[in-house]
């Protein structure tokens, strides 16, 4: 006999202010199978959970409905609570009377009525619930870090230091990422390379870390604890085991004038190259698209001839390597927006209009100008530089609605660097708001203004155009309420931070979700900020949203901690709410198979009575070790044979009926 208890939470006044909780409990008492209903101020608190456990014992409850906040919040809490009291955790349902009721209503009678209906639905469902049991999943204790920037490096080091093997997959020749391109870092003005390089070396030498540079993710299969990842190791044409990184080849390569993407195309590199002198691994790659050997049928071969260790091997091919990992950290970083939608700023048209990253290279001692700030058009030292903030950010109409977060600070830093390197140069900053939330950030900004005399103009830039040998930046000073025109030798646009161009495609390969700007989505914005929606995939750095270095490093360490936490368990507890097949209904069309992201569906031969005959036929079966309970199969199944336990048609219809009838 079903005996349902209903527990209505006040959530302080969160619920109780808009919902008459006593009334809801009273209405619940009249629902079928409900033998007990009560309210409490904070059901999730210890006394609240104790109240549930006591009621289960006292009233012999075998099913429980908790009317409280979103199940996202406390479903697990209450499941554990009822389980401790001897009730199967899946015989507990949460009626969301906070997010879906009290928070969206003002009128108490309306809120109360709706809460009562939601409780009735949960009661109807829980009456049809059946006990479910979790299984155990093995864990492959190896982590994959996608992206070798500071986020990936930090995550890899933290995981490896905990004793687990890590593979870093980096698209470029070297790890280091965006941070390697930076000159100084705010607010301390440490040299970026000086603090990054040791970490790169650590990663390069760590016995538990393998770096797959010049590599990309080809495909990801499997599921939490048991991913099977195919990595494309692009052909480098250099045998890494033999190469000593002596540099003979890149120094002697006759093709010299290829744009260096590391230097934001402001400098050059040869066809065989390392990204920068401190590259890890210090093994060059041949850019086959521009190498004479490949363009002219085996001509040239200079590098091969000069290589003292015979490391050059033109015949190398891309290799697909399949490896198993238990967890994945996504740390694919960002790029800056191309700003094509803003022709009025002239990025790409006027050589002296550059982005902040270009400026970093121009100001960096390892950059194309060896740290001397020269404008790209004629190499002259700029005497006036305009920095434009929110270039493409916070612009719902044309760009991205979000704030790119780091620009206020790095532009202040760049203005300071300009003033330090060229004291007579003027620095103007066009801004919308200055956002300096962070330790010592506001002070840094004030120093820029007060100590370095950076000229901050509140307003947007309407147009940048050339005049004689300089640029004119027109805009509006909204504080003074008048148009301004500033002559500049260079314009530095703080271009919006956006995910890598292929972020969405990669997310689809890995099976994680992303938002409309293609930033990877976290499982919960507050409570699970470093986990993706997919079990075993974690997020670090700008691929999840714009952030600065300290935040990135913090998130990377957090993601690493999550990975380590996962690896520290003997086995993972698998989902209990899994798909199952009603074999009598299954027609064996296998439409469920291609939609299953976990490859959990397999054919199975069954024997069946058909009239007086016994027949054999093939139906779908779910491998409970692989199924993650996503429900895609249940949706695709045309015959209704596939169902998701815990969300069966009967249960959902009962909920609908309880609300509608």
């Amino acid at each position: 006999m079903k005996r349902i208890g209903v527990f209505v939470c006040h959530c302080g006044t969160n619920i109780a202010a808009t919902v008459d909780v006593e009334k809801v409990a009273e209405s619940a008492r009249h629902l079928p199978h409900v033998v007990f209903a009560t309210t409490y101020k904070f059901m999730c608190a210890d006394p609240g959970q104790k109240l549930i456990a006591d009621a289960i014992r006292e009233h012999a409850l075998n099913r429980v409905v908790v009317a409280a906040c979103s199940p996202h919040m406390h479903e697990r809490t209450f499941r554990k609570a009822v389980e401790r009291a001897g009730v199967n955790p899946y015989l507990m349902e949460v009626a969301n009377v906070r997010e879906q009721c009290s928070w969206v209503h003002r009128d108490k009678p309306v809120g109360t009525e709706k809460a009562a209906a939601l409780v009735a639905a949960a009661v109807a469902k829980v009456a049809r619930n059946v006990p479910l049991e979790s299984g155990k999943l093995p864990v492959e204790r190896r982590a994959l870090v996608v992206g070798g920037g500071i986020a990936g490096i930090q995550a890899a080091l933290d995981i490896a230091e905990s004793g687990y093997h890590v593979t870093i997959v980096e698209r470029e020749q070297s790890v280091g990422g965006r941070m390697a391109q930076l000159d100084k870092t705010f607010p301390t003005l440490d040299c970026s390379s000086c603090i990054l390089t040791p970490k790169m070396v650590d990663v390069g030498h760590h016995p538990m870390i393998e770096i797959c540079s010049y590599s990309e993710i080809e495909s990801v299969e499997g599921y939490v604890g048991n991913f099977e990842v195919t990595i494309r190791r692009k052909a480098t044409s250099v045998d890494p085991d033999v190469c000593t990184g002596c540099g003979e080849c890149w120094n002697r390569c006759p093709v010299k004038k290829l744009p260096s993407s590391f230097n934001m195309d402001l400098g050059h590199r040869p066809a065989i190259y390392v990204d920068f002198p401190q590259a890890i691994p210090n093994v060059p790659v041949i850019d086959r698209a521009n190498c004479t050997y490949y363009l002219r049928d085996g001509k040239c071969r200079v590098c091969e001839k000069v290589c003292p260790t015979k490391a050059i091997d033109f015949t190398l091919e891309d290799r697909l390597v399949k490896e198993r990992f238990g967890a994945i950290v996504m740390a694919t970083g960002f790029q800056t927006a191309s700003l094509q939608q803003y022709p009025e700023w002239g990025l790409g048209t006027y050589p002296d209009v550059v982005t902040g990253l270009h400026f970093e290279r121009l100001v960096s001692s390892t950059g194309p100008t060896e740290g001397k700030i020269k404008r790209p058009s004629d190499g002259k030292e700029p005497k006036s530089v305009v920095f434009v903030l929110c270039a493409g950010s916070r612009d719902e109409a044309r760009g991205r609605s979000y704030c790119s977060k780091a620009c206020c600070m790095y532009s202040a830093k760049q203005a300071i660097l300009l003033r330090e390197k060229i004291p007579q140069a003027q620095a103007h900053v066009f801004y919308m708001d200055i956002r300096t939330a962070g330790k010592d950030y506001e002070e840094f900004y004030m120093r820029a203004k007060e100590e370095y005399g950076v000229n901050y103009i509140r307003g947007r830039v309407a147009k940048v155009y050339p005049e004689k040998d300089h640029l004119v930046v027109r805009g509006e000073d909204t504080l003074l309420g008048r148009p301004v025109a500033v002559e500049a030798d260079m314009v530095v646009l703080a271009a919006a931070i956006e995910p890598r161009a292929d972020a969405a495609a990669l997310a689809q390969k890995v099976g994680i979700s992303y938002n409309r700007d293609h930033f990877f989505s976290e499982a919960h914005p507050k409570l699970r900020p470093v986990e993706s929606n997919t079990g075993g995939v974690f997020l670090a750095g700008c691929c999840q949203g714009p952030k600065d270095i300290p935040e990135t490093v913090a998130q990377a360490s957090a993601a690493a901690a999550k990975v380590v936490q996962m690896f520290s368990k003997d086995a993972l507890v698998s989902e209990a709410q899994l798909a199952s097949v009603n074999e009598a209904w299954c027609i064996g069309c296998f439409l469920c198979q291609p939609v299953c992201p976990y490859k959990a569906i397999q054919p199975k031969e069954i024997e069946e009575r058909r009239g007086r005959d016994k027949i054999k036929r093939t139906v779908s079966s779910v491998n409970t070790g692989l199924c993650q309970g996503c429900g895609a199969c249940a949706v695709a199944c045309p015959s209704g044979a596939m169902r998701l336990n815990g969300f069966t048609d009967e249960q959902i219809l009962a909920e609908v009926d309880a609300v509608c009838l």
Partner: protein
Amino acid sequence: MSEAIKTAAPVEGEPMPAELKTAEIPTRRGPAPGDPEFLGALRDCCRSLLAEGHVQRIIAYRETPDSLRPEVAFFASPEETGDLVWDLFCNTNICKYLLDYRTFEGRIGVVVKGCDARGVVQLINDMQIPRDKVEIIGICCPGQIDPAKVESAAGEAWVSRVVAGPDSVEIVTEEGTEMRVPLESVLTDRCLSCRKPNPPVADVVFGEDQKGRISDEVFEQIAELERMSSAERDAFWNRHFERCIRCFACRNVCPACSCTKCVFDQQEPDWLAGERNQANQHFFQITRAVHVSGRCTGCEECDRVCPVGIPLRLMNKKLWKDVKDLFDSPLPGTKLGVRSPLVMWDPKDADSFE
């Protein structure tokens, strides 16, 4: 819970139980219907398939005393093929019978028109029967005659037989009178707007490719429906659905309906209650149409069998039009190995939620 934890080791995914062949099948050609040698050749073909053991059963039609209504027949031996028939009254779409042969040990031959053949292909694509188990004996169909139209043309006299020519038919009555009517006037409604009278896949084909009759009537009706306000459309369908007696003939003949336990037969939950009311009538009709959309081959057999004249083809065609516009996929049943776009997922799919 700890004691209840079960250990389940993951198992490698196995391949699909049967690979779908997508290669075009080489076909042989036989004489066309209307050719004096046609029936003999068809019978010979079926006889030898059975005699040589290529097939163990042939699903086709058999002559009956009522020449307007040949019956579906299942031929198990070469001797039986003597009364196998194929004429312009073979209206019944026989592809659905293949479902009864899902567990049959041998191979099955089916004598199919263009519309029937699409059903066969759809069943293969839905993995209800493997391609190599079916011998598709295709006929390029010149169009089928509606016996009711013939009978109504004959008036009170009883029709004895009908002799079909390329453009007209001669109706001979029991009393011996003869009358000639244009072929178009007695063709079934579906044949009048048939664009694909030829089997898209076959092992042997009789006749040369037919052009089909391109009447745009259905599409004009769809356009008209689309122009209606939702209230008008509701009234339109309500008028038709109201007549539905829920005999489920539309479902039972449909080559896209292959569920072992139909949602309408489920008792817990009882999605479709027996009570006759507007909600239930709509629920049945709309659920059926949506369920087969993306797999409906446009054979219009449902429309043919509906005893109360509900214009099912209108609904099916409208849904097909929408699916085609959204996913640009081929008409179901015209290509081997194509699965319904509505149940497949592709990152390139239209994403109207953005």
